[in-house]
């Protein structure tokens, strides 16, 4: 019998007075935690492999289950926490890099929660969005410096291609392969019904989803998976992925086990081979190189598609964004360090990158200072958790936001952060056919539509409270924000005053 250096993270607690032994928990657990013991005629559990995904709790018809954090405790130590010790044991056993999924869970400051929103009182009227017009439509792309008119009054300014959105919220890039086909279908149908966009991620576009092209952003990443003429022409915009908030500076690795027939066809790689996205684009070593790719893609699509360049929020993000704004890109997407992932090395996810709030404020300010803010639209991602976060992001200078984790939550994800195991019990981050079918897109897309509609309604309510009747008028309106509990430096980077000032 080997020594178990660490115990389970969670305990499965079953109330025997409520359990009716229907065995639904057993049938729904891909980690094989629950089992029926015929000798004692009872349901039992081995908690060691439990990841706290809450699937069994959610499906139990008599609410007989709960999952609790185990109270088995290593001797308390503020320096060597139980988690750090466990990770050392794991690596001593495996000799490998620790892998994690979804966004950085560490206790770093969340600046959204230290920013407060203004409202009108007495001296200017607030607006009731139910009774008065309220515009949430946004256009992403380069904005003209001036508008020229012909003698007959018609406009003589050529407008570059734009992405038109009914609301300033889009679904983040999540590839087919990292998430299931049913998850992609839910996102595609929801984006179409909402009049916004979802994003293919770097995994190509499944042939069944070309019909949603008008609401699709197609991504070109360092692995160049699934890219050909029809793909580039299918979407509303093309996104060049330079980096991802969860793992700045490194590429991606989709294990061969997830490359089944459909994924293989869509990515255009053989079945069962690992899909490795290099850390850099091997043809991009400078802003000039980026410009070449931007214009290659524009040329390939007859200058009809706006080009997005997505980068992770890192230390020099403002200077990098300035370069991108001069590269011919139409939109810059910035992904903060809390952004999600299907798999990333734990150390990178938890220690690399900067908060999106600070990155956004510094990028917006830099582009304004250099007089090139109108060259590009700015989209931010990396843990936009609510309509309030959206409003704060727009007031800090964003044109729109990407939501990824929140969208997955709407589909059932409980942030167990085990995507890299490929055994997602909610049918989202898996390619196992028996698990994939747990996500019925008919249910999924409606839940996504509900979520974004609700957020959009809340955005209108908050804008109305400030006496603002369009997203355009809120964008970059930092006077509508105040910091709380922030120091001078943080306030100056965010470009906002402290509450009470």
């Amino acid at each position: 019998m080997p020594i178990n250096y660490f115990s389970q993270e969670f305990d499965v607690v079953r109330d025997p007075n409520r359990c009716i032994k229907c065995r639904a928990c057993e049938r729904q657990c891909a980690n094989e935690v629950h089992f029926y013991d015929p000798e004692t005629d009872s349901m039992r559990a081995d908690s060691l492999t439990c990841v706290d995904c809450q699937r069994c709790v959610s499906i139990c018809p008599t609410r007989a289950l709960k999952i609790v954090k185990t109270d088995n405790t290593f001797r308390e130590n503020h320096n060597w926490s139980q988690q750090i010790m466990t990770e050392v044991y794991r690596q001593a056993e495996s000799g490998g890099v620790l892998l994690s999924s979804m966004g950085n869970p560490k206790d770093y400051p969340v600046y959204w929660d230290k920013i407060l929103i203004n409202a009108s009182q007495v001296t200017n009227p607030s607006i009731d969005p139910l009774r008065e017009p309220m515009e949430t439509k946004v256009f992403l792309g380069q904005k003209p410096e001036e508008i020229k008119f012909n003698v007959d009054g018609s406009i003589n300014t050529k407008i570059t291609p734009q992405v038109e959105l009914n609301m300033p919220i889009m679904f983040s890039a999540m590839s087919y392969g990292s998430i299931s086909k049913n998850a992609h279908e839910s996102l595609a149908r929801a984006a179409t019904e909402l009049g916004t966009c979802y994003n293919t991620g770097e995994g190509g576009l499944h042939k069944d989803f070309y019909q949603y092209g008008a609401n699709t952003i197609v991504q070109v990443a360092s692995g160049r998976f699934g890219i050909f003429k029809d793909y580039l022409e299918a979407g509303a915009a093309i996104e060049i992925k330079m980096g991802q908030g969860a793992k700045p500076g490194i590429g991606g690795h989709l294990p061969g086990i997830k490359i089944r027939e459909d994924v293989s066809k869509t990515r255009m790689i053989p079945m069962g081979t690992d899909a490795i996205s290099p850390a850099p684009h091997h043809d991009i070593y400078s802003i000039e190189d980026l410009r070449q790719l931007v214009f290659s893609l524009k040329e390939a699509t007859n200058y009809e598609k706006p080009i997005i360049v997505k980068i992770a929020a890192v230390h020099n993000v403002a200077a990098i964004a300035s370069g991108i704004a001069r590269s011919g890109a139409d939109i810059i997407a910035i992904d903060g360090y809390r952004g999600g992932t299907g798999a990333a090395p734990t150390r990178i996810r938890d220690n690399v990158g900067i908060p999106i709030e600070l990155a956004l404020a510094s990028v917006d300010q830099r582009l304004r200072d250099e007089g090139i803010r109108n060259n590009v639209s700015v989209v931010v991602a990396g843990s936009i958790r609510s309509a309030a976060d959206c409003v704060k992001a727009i007031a800090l200078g964003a044109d729109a936001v990407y939501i990824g984790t929140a969208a997955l939550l709407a589909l059932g994800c409980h942030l167990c952060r085990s995507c890299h195991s490929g055994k997602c019990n909610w049918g989202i981050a898996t390619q196992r056919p028996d698990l994939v079918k747990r996500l019925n897109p008919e249910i999924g897309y409606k839940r996504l539509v509900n979520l974004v509609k609700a957020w959009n309604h809340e955005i209108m309510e908050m804008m109305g409270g400030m006496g603002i009747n369009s997203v355009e008028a809120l964008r970059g309106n930092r006077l509508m924000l105040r910091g709380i509990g922030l120091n001078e430096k943080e306030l100056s980077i965010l470009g906002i005053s402290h509450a009470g000032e």
Partner: protein
Amino acid sequence: MKKVYVNEDWCLGCHLCEYYCAFANSGETDMINAFKNNKAATPRITIEEGEKSADGSNVNFAVSCRHCDDPACVKGCITGALSIKDGVICIDETRCVGCYTCVLTCPYGCIVVDKSSGGKTITKCELCTKNSSGEPACVKGCPNKAIVFEERGAK
């Protein structure tokens, strides 16, 4: 007429429909009591699970009465225990003698032997018209909308 339809694409084989059916027809108001006190009825819906193929995929299917327009079970019933009321094929347990002719004639295998009677009578789905469920309990309880209750026109 609205009927229960099953879409095998979305059936997870969780068997919860059976349990919700057994509870709905138990007459109990509490699911736990129904099962703990042996009051749970024989489920009128049963899941048939296909074998798993190499890639882990399998087909599961919930089998319950299709309420045929021209039902073989009603024709074959020797005592008149089975009848059609407003399109719903109903069973009168007091008339059933347990000959199982209906079990043999149903081409879909939807008639079940009522275990609570010791196998002396059969029972079947009556679309929850004789209990307090309202919409059929299997439909309400299905976690993945694999079982639906809807109008699909004639046939």
